[in-house]
């Protein structure tokens, strides 16, 4: 493995560990005694002691942390205070909705943004460009959950093409489930696509000014051919960084949009857990989301090396 990837992998591990420490400190230590939180102030000392013993809360902090991440590493996310069942199956079931939602929104974002951004750059300062820039300026300013509400107003309330929300589950046929994710994906993708469109456009414009573009034109390649063969790949480098950073926003946005469309995803689980004071579930969900964001960014950096030979060849 090239030095660049090794170094990046080390950073990934360090970031994951730091993330787990923060989540553990904030959610396990800061709130005080979970036993008191869950059982309430009326609980007897005996009840409290039993609870603490049951969940291992009477052990030293470092032991509890090491125990927690050791279990995390093998996919054991602990026991829910509220449901008294292992946390992982609860979360896994919800992830089947949240991950596909975030992924389809990501796909939509990338496809829309690349198409519109490249088109706008190719039409620099012409009506097509100005229209796309105007719409994207508006898009950036929309709250995604409000856009979702407007979509419900139009497509569910007025046109009746979609239901206003809910999720039939993957068991009843993939098509119906996918259909219920269309509006949520669009409302999630719209804002991010607007941001990415602008970044794609300025990146393409910047590359179009490079000397090697003139070289390619001097070889007799048409503007179109230069755009596809020489400009696009160079322009993608900054775009990919932003895509990686946007994934965090999309995942966070998914939690919001799930509320808009009443989708039983991770967001719903988290809000129930918050009102139940079910810290174990919140802890597991938060750490999982943070890990996902960090890992996606790692993958993006690996993609970098695939696209840019200057990174691949660098052996320090």
């Amino acid at each position, binding site marked *: 493995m090239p030095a660049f990837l090794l170094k990046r992998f080390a950073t990934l591990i360090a970031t994951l560990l730091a993330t787990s420490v923060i989540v553990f400190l*904030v959610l396990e230590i800061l709130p005080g005694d979970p036993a008191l939180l869950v059982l309430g102030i009326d609980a007897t000392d005996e009840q409290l002691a039993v609870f603490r013993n049951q969940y291992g809360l009477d052990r030293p902090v470092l032991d509890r942390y090491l125990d927690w991440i050791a279990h995390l590493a093998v996919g054991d996310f602990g026991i829910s205070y509220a449901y008294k069942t292992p946390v992982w199956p609860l979360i896994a079931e919800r992830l089947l909705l949240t991950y596909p939602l975030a992924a389809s929104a990501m796909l939509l974002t990338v496809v829309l943004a690349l198409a519109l951004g490249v088109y706008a750059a190719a039409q620099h300062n012409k009506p097509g460009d100005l229209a796309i820039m105007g719409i994207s300026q*508006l898009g950036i300013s929309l709250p995604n959950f409000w856009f979702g509400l407007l979509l419900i107003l139009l497509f569910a309330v007025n046109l009746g093409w979609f239901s206003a929300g809910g999720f039939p589950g993957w068991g009843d046929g993939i098509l119906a489930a996918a259909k219920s994710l269309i509006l949520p994906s669009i409302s999630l993708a719209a804002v991010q696509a607007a941001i990415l469109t602008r970044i794609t456009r300025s990146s393409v414009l910047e590359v179009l000014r490079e000397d090697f573009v003139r070289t390619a034109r001097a070889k007799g390649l048409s503007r179109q051919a230069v755009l596809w063969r020489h400009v696009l790949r160079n322009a993608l480098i900054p775009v990919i960084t932003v895509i990686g950073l946007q994934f965090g926003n999309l995942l966070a946005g998914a939690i919001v949009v799930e509320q808009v469309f009443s989708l039983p995803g991770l967001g719903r689980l988290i809000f129930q857990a*918050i009102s139940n004071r079910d810290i174990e579930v919140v802890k597991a969900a938060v750490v999982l989301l943070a890990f996902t964001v960090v890992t996606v960014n790692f993958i993006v950096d690996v993609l970098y090396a695939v696209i840019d030979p200057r990174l691949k060849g660098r052996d320090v």
Partner: protein
Amino acid sequence: MSDGRSGSSFLRRAFRHRSFVVGATLTAFVVAMALLSLIWTPYAPTAINIRRRMAMPSADHWLGTDSFGRDVLSLILAGAQNSLTVGVLAVGCGIVLGSTLGLLAAARRGWIEELVMRFADFTFAFPAILSAIMLAAIFGPSTMNSVVAIAIFNIPVFARVVRGSANAIWARDYILAARSAGKGSTRITIEHVLPNILAVIVVQATIQFALAILAEAALSYLGLGTQPPTPSWGRMLNEAQAMVFRAPFLAVFPGCAIAIAVLGLNLLGDGLRDLTDPRLSRQR
């Protein structure tokens, strides 16, 4: 840029800059809404009137009434207050703490810089909503939650931007001169670095303010932020959603208010960036 005469020429250029003018106008409009709500609203924003629930917009209630019979216009005016307060507090914390870290990193370099930058890299794993979820899980939902969560998200942004610009200033000749004159790095930072990066901080603050308003609305919408009865745009949308089939117009106005505030700040930020960037200023 020299400061003496450029003041008036800055204003002259600013008034010709389309994004700046539109952005400043929209932002001023939102600020005016918030200020107005301090002294006057058509009705008391929290006054419930069960007999006038979900009234369509009319001469009495310009934007209609909500499911509790409250006047929507009054709620939106008062909601501006909430959005701007959270934005100012959260971005203010971000500026103060983030810029301090960024200036420190640029002045000290070495492991301190490395530490600050790693910290900044690391916080992207926690979007504001994730921080807010953790805070709400511990302390219960509140406006202060929104402020803290959004501030946490803002600190690394300012640390990064300030460090980048400050490093560029530190590399200049007159800093070298100041150093060889025996000035300490704290004094150089205050006398030379900070004044030169103020424009960058202001531009970034404008854009972060827009993001803060979006985040605040999302948190209130989710019920993690501002709690009833305090009027907030996000909360209004949450309540409107339940009525979306019976009173769809309720979902429209608070969203417009958010979009206007965010659009205004974004345009203002774009305009300020163009106007203060010495590379671009001559082209405009």
